[in-house]
């Protein structure tokens, strides 16, 4: 999920002046205007696997399975599903669902969608990660899907919630059949056909009306929607990527609801009479990663040895961090202290895992490890990617320095930071991970598992850490279809990963929405702003 804000100014007088602003009665004209913090790179639902794109598609295109505000699976176009055996799943599709052009939704639309996903031209980051597990699809009748996977694949329903289903008929794909090696079709719909609106035909609660890149996307209510009708006749999405102007647009009444107002404005927004806030813990954890390379790139004073290879040193650094202080003083309360990679309530969270803060114990451990006088360390961090990222890094640096590890911060803009980090140019870096699947296998697989190309493990493991036993635990969990058993396996794995102190969690970001008084929105852990879930007060 790429979010950008080039300017993060404080709005000094914003809330005070808002006292004087006129409050238009909500719900008068049933138009909702949303100020978004980022713009989708295209309207094509399969073009770019990116937060703003998914947010946009969820209004027009639906998936078989969806996630609720707490990221638990719930039926969408599929009414129910079950694992027939280890490698076979059966989905019963909802009947009477109509696409925006009036044609009926059937199993063929799903088949066509899965076929199209690998065939999107120029896709910067495609959804094939989520269709790879599918080995075969059969449709015994138009409203039943039987999906086979090559090996036991418990994450299938989760992954089916990530992509929207397009109309096979609108794209001329009624005859396309699924083939693992590659489906056959004369041509595939272009991204352009979605951007110009001609293929914006989904089953969702809103119909596409118009789109001006960089300025606005306008949607209209779908009167034939199968589910509850949205409260809005018209929805306008306006990208306002700079933080201050986005808040100003809300206060001025230009927009009705905005995403992620800057942390420093939240207190003031709270006291503004015509604004209400909604907030929820997100699925994103901010963490420190400790590199165990043989020659540490940013550690000095240890004769070239890497002290982080010693578990005692890593434990000491974890003990040095005062998470409560970071949350209170730097995150202004818009975060929760983290003790693992996903908050309580998420699938795979292990309630027994805890973290502690103890500077004396930390010093003692450092001395035991042979570094009574500590060493010098440079901590890498982006300064425009996560909420207050560089300030958090500064605070961590002070906490490290307090136990004797002299720490400097190297804060750079996100695109420079990520390039350096991916070349493993930091011994310790600060970053964040949002588990799009809402379950623990996501951070474990990406951040701490040994990089194994074939399995897609360790894609964001830039620490050189490798624990074959942990990899094995993940292997087992990812092949266990029984939900209860898998959760236990993941809980054991997260315990083992946390004991290694390679990825040290700091806090979970809290996502905030600000809206006109009189509107309400159930805050979502996945951070999407969904117009169909915004409701006027009764």
């Amino acid at each position, binding site marked *: 999920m*790429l979010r950008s804000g*080039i300017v993060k100014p404080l709005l000094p007088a*914003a809330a005070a*002046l808002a006292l004087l*602003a006129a409050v238009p009665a909500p719900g008068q004209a049933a138009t909702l205007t949303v100020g978004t913090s980022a713009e989708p790179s295209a309207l094509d639902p399969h073009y770019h696997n990116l937060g703003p794109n998914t947010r946009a598609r969820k209004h027009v295109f639906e998936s078989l399975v969806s996630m609720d505000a707490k990221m638990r699976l719930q039926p969408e176009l599929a009414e129910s599903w079950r694992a027939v055996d280890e490698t076979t799943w059966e989905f019963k599709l909802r009947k009477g669902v109509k696409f925006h052009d009036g044609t009926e939704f059937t199993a063929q639309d799903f088949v066509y969608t899965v076929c199209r996903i690998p065939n999107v031209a120029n896709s910067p980051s495609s959804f094939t990660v989520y269709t790879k597990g599918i080995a075969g699809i059969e449709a015994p009748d138009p409203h039943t899907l039987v999906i086979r996977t090559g090996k036991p694949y418990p994450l299938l329903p989760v992954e089916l919630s990530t992509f929207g289903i397009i109309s096979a008929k609108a794209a001329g794909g009624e005859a396309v059949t699924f083939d693992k090696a590659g489906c056959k079709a004369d041509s595939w719909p272009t991204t352009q056909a979605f951007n110009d609106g001609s293929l914006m035909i989904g089953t969702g609660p809103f119909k596409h009306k118009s789109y001006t890149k*960089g300025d606005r996307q306008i949607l209209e209510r779908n009167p034939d929607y199968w589910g509850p009708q949205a409260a809005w006749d018209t929805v306008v999405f306006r990208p306002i990527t700079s933080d201050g102007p986005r808040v100003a647009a809300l206060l001025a009444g230009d927009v009705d609801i905005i995403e992620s107002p800057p942390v420093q404005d939240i207190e003031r927004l709270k006291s503004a009479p015509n604004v209400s806030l909604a907030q929820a813990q997100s699925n994103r954890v901010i963490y420190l990663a400790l590199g165990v390379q043989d020659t540490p790139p940013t550690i000095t004073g240890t004769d070239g040895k890497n002290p982080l290879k010693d578990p005692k040193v890593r434990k000491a650094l974890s003990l040095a961090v005062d998470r409560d202080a970071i949350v209170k003083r730097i995150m202004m309360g818009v975060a929760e202290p983290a003790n693992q990679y996903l908050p309580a309530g998420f699938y795979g969270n292990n309630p027994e895992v805890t973290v502690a803060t103890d500077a004396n114990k930390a010093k003692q451990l450092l001395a035991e490890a042979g570094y009574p006088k500590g060493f010098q360390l440079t901590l890498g961090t982006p300064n425009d990617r996560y909420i207050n990222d560089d300030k958090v890094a500064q605070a961590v640096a002070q906490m490290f320095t307090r136990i004797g590890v002299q720490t400097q911060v190297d804060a750079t803009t996100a695109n420079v930071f990520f390039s350096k980090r991916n070349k493993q140019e930091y011994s310790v870096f600060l970053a964040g991970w949002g588990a799009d699947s809402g379950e623990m296998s996501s951070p474990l697989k990406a951040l701490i598992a040994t990089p194994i190309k074939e399995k897609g493990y360790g*894609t964001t493991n830039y620490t050189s850490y490798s624990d074959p036993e942990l990899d094995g635990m993940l292997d087992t969990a990812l092949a266990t279809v029984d939900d209860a058993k898998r959760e236990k396996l993941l809980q054991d794995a997260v315990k083992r990963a946390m004991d290694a102190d390679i990825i040290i969690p700091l806090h979970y970001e809290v996502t905030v929405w600000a809206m006109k008084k009189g509107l309400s929105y159930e805050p979502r852990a996945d951070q999407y702003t969904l117009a169909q879930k915004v409701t006027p007060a009764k």
Partner: protein
Amino acid sequence: MLVFILRRLAQSAVVVVAMSVLVFAGIFAIGNPIDVLISPEADEFERAAAIARLGLDKPMHEQFLRFVESAVGGDLGTSFVHGVPALGLVLQRFPATLELALCAMLVAVVLGIPLGLWAGLKPDSLAGRVIMTGSILGFSLPTFWVGMMLIMAFAVTLGWLPAGGRGETAGLFGVQWSFLTADGLAHLILPAVNLALFKLSLVIRLARAGTREVALQDYVKFARAKGLAPARVVGVHILKNIMIPVVTVLGLELGSVIAFSVVTESVFAWPGMGKLLIDSILQLDRPVVIAYLLVTVLLFVVINLIVDLVYSLLDPRIRLGGGRA
């Protein structure tokens, strides 16, 4: 005249080539687009495929040659992020920026010249001093801050004007413009004023300095002595002569307004080229950044050429001969 234009075009070509090399090398140094573009959940196969498709697996000189090859054919590459031709993306945003820039220039000229004239004719009057003090503020206050203050005052507190965006547009010559609708005009006012402030101060200062100098010239004294109406003296004899520096500077400034309206466009969420540039730099969308900068260079070249031509019309003493350098 023809020789002059030809020579200028040849010089411009050199500038464009030099710029493209610099820009290409510069953007190459920033970071690897793949790290920003691709989903962190993507596996190694995905990454490798994306890198190959974007041509990022090739060494820099090879990428540059490929770029030059297609650029000669008018293709500046495909946006990494949006998957559409980069040049088209930039040109699509051009009308919004042009509209904003022209409005800002209009504000600067329509207000700046009379104010500057006044301050120049009556330098010691209260009004003259107020104008000059105001112009200092216009120079020194940061655009970003002024923009936020304008929004706070006119959008949030008074509620007269919208806080940002482009509003309703209407088509003319196949392009969408804001100034043709009432809603669009309302959206245009604040950003245009914000962008105009600096230019306004500049015009005031130029006009004032010119007026003070010209007002003391013999031909002005003579015109006055002849008994010409003061309005005619100011309107013809003074105004025409102070326009030469004003036109030159405004011409150059028009280019910079178009190219560097980045801040105003960000503050007012104005969907122009400047905002596209910022977003593209953040996402390391190299083709779009390069296309933007090349378009900007061309724009500067063309504007400078026009300025030189207008200049020669205003002051017949200036010849655009080919002989002298």
